[in-house]
């Protein structure tokens, strides 16, 4: 189970016509880390199912005619200058994931510009794309530009929530953010992703508090919890069907993958 998509996410994506997923949330809720993990795991999931001879079971694994899907990560974060998914271009290239982002030829610029090839995500039927959207309603405003294209087809629109961010400490405050993001981009959220953590200081108590927090947001909004993201080192929770084990790809320069002690330095 640990290496499969959480059940709710699998079920939600098991509709071949869904080809775009939007990851939004409050500033610093961890959207980029989630988006990067999701696209890499989607590719792995697809390969696994095709190898097992059951591509029909794959969420977005194959087209109905059996043609394998292509994958893209769409970095439309125009509000953050650092820690953007485009920084992991090397990883995407290695895994065959297409990176669609503004200023590919000036990836360190903070231009509020959107690339023309975003249109591929709406026009190209065999492309499954995960959009890493900038934080807050301000970041989500980008999607309003494409509201017409997006709402023409079924889509998944998730809001990442973290109980340790001061502005979304309570479920009620998080709900306000979800509503503000929906209002700004004109699209409805379809699920919640829990990501309550404290970087290297995360404890089991924090994670469990996060489970309760996302459940409360779910009951306040009626939106399903598609999963709770949990760092892979917390093995105790990885078998839960509502957990997506994640690896940390957006490391700070003094951090070392897999060792939280370096985060506390």
């Amino acid at each position, binding site marked *: 189970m640990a290496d499969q998509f959480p059940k709710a996410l699998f079920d939600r994506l098991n509709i071949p016509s869904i080809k775009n997923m939007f990851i939004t949330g409050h*500033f610093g809720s961890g959207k980029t880390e989630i988006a990067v993990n999701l696209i890499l795991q989607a590719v792995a999931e697809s390969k696994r199912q095709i190898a097992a001879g059951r591509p029909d079971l794959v969420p977005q694994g194959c087209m109905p005619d059996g043609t394998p899907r292509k994958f893209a990560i769409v970095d439309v974060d125009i509000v953050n200058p*650092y820690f953007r998914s485009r920084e992991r271009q090397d990883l995407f290239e290695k895994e065959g994931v297409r990176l669609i982002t503004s200023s590919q030829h000036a990836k360190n610029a903070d231009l509020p510009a959107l690339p023309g090839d975003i249109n591929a995500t709406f026009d190209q039927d065999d492309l499954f794309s995960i959009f890493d959207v900038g934080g807050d309603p301000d970041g989500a405003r980008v999607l309003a530009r494409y509201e017409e294209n997006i709402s023409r087809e079924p889509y998944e629109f998730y809001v990442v929530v973290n109980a340790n961010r001061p502005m979304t400490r309570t479920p009620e405050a998080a709900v306000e953010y979800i509503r503000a993001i929906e209002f700004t981009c004109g699209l409805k959220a379809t699920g919640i992703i829990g990501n309550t953590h404290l970087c290297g200081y995360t404890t089991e108590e924090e994670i469990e508090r996060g489970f309760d927090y996302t459940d409360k947001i779910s009951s306040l909004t009626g939106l399903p919890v598609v999963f709770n993201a949990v760092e892979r080192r917390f093995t105790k929770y990885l078998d839960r069907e509502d957990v997506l084990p994640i690896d940390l790809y957006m490391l700070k320069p003094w951090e070392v993958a897999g060792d939280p002690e370096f985060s506390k*330095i």
Partner: protein
Amino acid sequence: MAKELWKGNEAIGEAAVRAGCDGYFGYPITPQSEVPEYMSWRMPQVGRVFLQSESEVATINMLYGGGAAGKRVMTSSSSPGIALMQEGFSYMAISEVPCVVVNCMRGGPGLGTIQPGQSDYMQATRGGGNGDYYNVVLAPCNMQETVDFVQEAFDIADQYRNPVMVVVDGLIGQMMEPIEWHDVPKRDIPPKTWATTGKHGRDHTNVIQSLEIDPESCNATNGRLHQKFMEMKKNEVRFDAENCDDAEVVVVAYGTPARIVMSAMKELREEGVKVGLFRPITIWPYPTEQLRKLAGEDHVKNFLVVEMSEGQMVEDVDFAVQGQKPITFYGVSGGAIPTIEAIKEHVMALLKEAK
């Protein structure tokens, strides 16, 4: 208090609010724009002033006015913006008007890059504007120190009636890290009887200005201010020395590079390598005496200076060490960041050289 996950620039704003900042004036520039954005939301909540100025030159002069009126004032900017403010720093220093300025440094010169840098070291530690003056410059290396120092900076500024700068690099401004809000040391600040707030029963109003047209008078003012700067130098030096008691190679670094050195040092110490970190926490005043003393220790064979510049602080290290031990420099600039691996390689090469 429980830990909370804050973005650096938001936390800088919140720290200022908690320190009693009465007025924030600022102009957007990457990578610090979240500070004015946060303050535009937060300051009205607590009934205080947020004002987006038309330029950095206007900003620093708003600080000059607000500070002269006895209010706690602050701005933040990034390298090119701070460069534009230098005239105001100089005016405030001679007029003895306190303020707090955060420089979220990026790579330069010129417009340079929006990625992190430390190439404003000389500008920050040598006054920066015209004339004989200094600012106390605090250089935190993580988010907790950043929020603590921003709060303390207001007291230091008021105590000496002088601008105080907190320098971070863009990475600290942009990253997310857990912090705790706790009490920071408070200083005994005398009432601001010098502020331009009216007569209050006296026979005169206070006048604050920087024109000292008579050379003798200007010389006397400079002399008096110099005494004050020497007091700051005596009282405000801060540094951290980790694993320096037996270190053969001492790495000198501040801010983000110091933190990367800590990771390199952790790995090297696990391999039995005797490496230490000397980290200036104030870059003015510089911990010259402390570093000089360390250089005299027999176990120290080499110094390695790591900066996100082409070599600026290394001049202060050179002055402190006074030729007692060799100094090697490893620097990257223009938005590049030193790596753990490269630091380890430099340390190992120096150890090999010493044997």
